[in-house]
């Protein structure tokens, strides 16, 4: 274990192996805390959905919650893609629920239990990058499968004058290619920034308590600030999940309906 008492805001994002695994192509594949928390998210999602799949005619509270979330995601897809977007509902729903539960689990106060800390699965760029890569692959595959080379008309808005077409095509193409990167980066940095802010103020609390005297006021103010920032972070968790799902549906709409 590292020496106790070291103040390190980035320690919460460290991926540590729990069980040693096997070697594949020269890389060590372990069971890490990141994988463990992904299983926790999976378990919670399963419990949540199974609890609501009762199909009672007059729904109980849990079923109302699950139906509310499903209706919410259905609404996103209906307003973004339209009636031929129903086949994308499983992917967008999975995306939304996984990101929402991962973000929220990272904010839970598991630090009360000595020795463990909550780990945000989506605070790893590999995880968010993979989710964005799958969304973008769906966009590319659907676009080229459905429209073949007419897909490139997406980059030339209707009615552009002929001399400007090459320039506009380049700019629109660049903006299109940045999309998966921006999706991944937005979620990743939003999670990292909020958690680092909370940890930095936690450091102030510890250092102020060590100093004693008038610094206790600083400690008190820092604790109040941590409470407010945590409330804001809960809101940001939900908003970032919603924005990821909404933008994915919008990009799929671009591929499916070609503006």
């Amino acid at each position, binding site marked *: 274990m590292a020496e106790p008492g070291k103040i390190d805001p980035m320690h919460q994002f460290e991926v540590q192996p729990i069980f040693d695994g096997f070697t594949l192509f020269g890389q060590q594949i372990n069971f890490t805390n990141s994988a463990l928390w992904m299983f926790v998210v999976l378990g919670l999602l399963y419990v949540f959905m199974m609890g609501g799949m009762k199909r009672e005619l007059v729904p109980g509270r849990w079923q109302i919650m699950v139906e509310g979330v499903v209706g919410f995601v259905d609404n*996103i897809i209906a*307003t*973004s893609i339209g009636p031929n977007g129903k086949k994308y509902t499983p992917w967008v729903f999975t995306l939304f629920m996984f990101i929402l539960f991962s973000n929220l689990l990272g904010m839970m106060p598991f630090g009360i239990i000595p020795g463990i800390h909550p780990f945000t699965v989506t605070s790893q760029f590999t995880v968010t990058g993979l989710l964005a890569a799958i969304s973008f692959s769906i966009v590319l595959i659907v676009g080229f499968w459905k429209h073949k080379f007419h897909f490139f008309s997406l980059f030339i808005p209707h009615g552009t004058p002929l001399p400007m077409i090459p320039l506009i095509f380049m700019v629109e193409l660049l903006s299109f290619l940045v999309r998966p990167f921006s999706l991944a*980066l*937005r979620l990743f*940095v*939003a999670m*990292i920034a909020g958690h680092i802010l909370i940890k930095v103020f936690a450091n102030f609390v510890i250092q102020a308590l060590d100093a004693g005297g008038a610094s206790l006021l600083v400690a008190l103010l820092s604790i109040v600030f941590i409470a407010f920032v945590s409330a804001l972070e809960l809101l940001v968790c939900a*908003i970032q999940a919603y*924005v990821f799902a909404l933008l994915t549906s919008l990009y799929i709409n671009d591929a499916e309906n070609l503006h």
Partner: protein
Amino acid sequence: MDLSSAQVIGAGLAAIGVGAAATGVGNVFGSFLEGALRNPSAADGQQGRLFIGFAAAELLGLIAFAVAMIILYAPPAVAEAEVVAVEAVAVDAPAAVEAPAAEPAE
């Protein structure tokens, strides 16, 4: 100016970009609220676009934050600075060895 001081100054300058993005985000929500108070019944239909605008404005602020983090923890110039420092030490060491060797010879 040594590298770590320059890093800290660079990160502080990049944080100004985050403040500029905060202005943009406030602009998005402010415009939405202004329009919503004039026409409350049409406000709920535009909520999706509100969050898309917020996400786009916040992304640029987060990119500025990412630049600050890259400068602080993984600056690309670190490898070059180490190479230059190693070469300078290697050039100085033989010269330093030759000078004391020349003096007792005289």
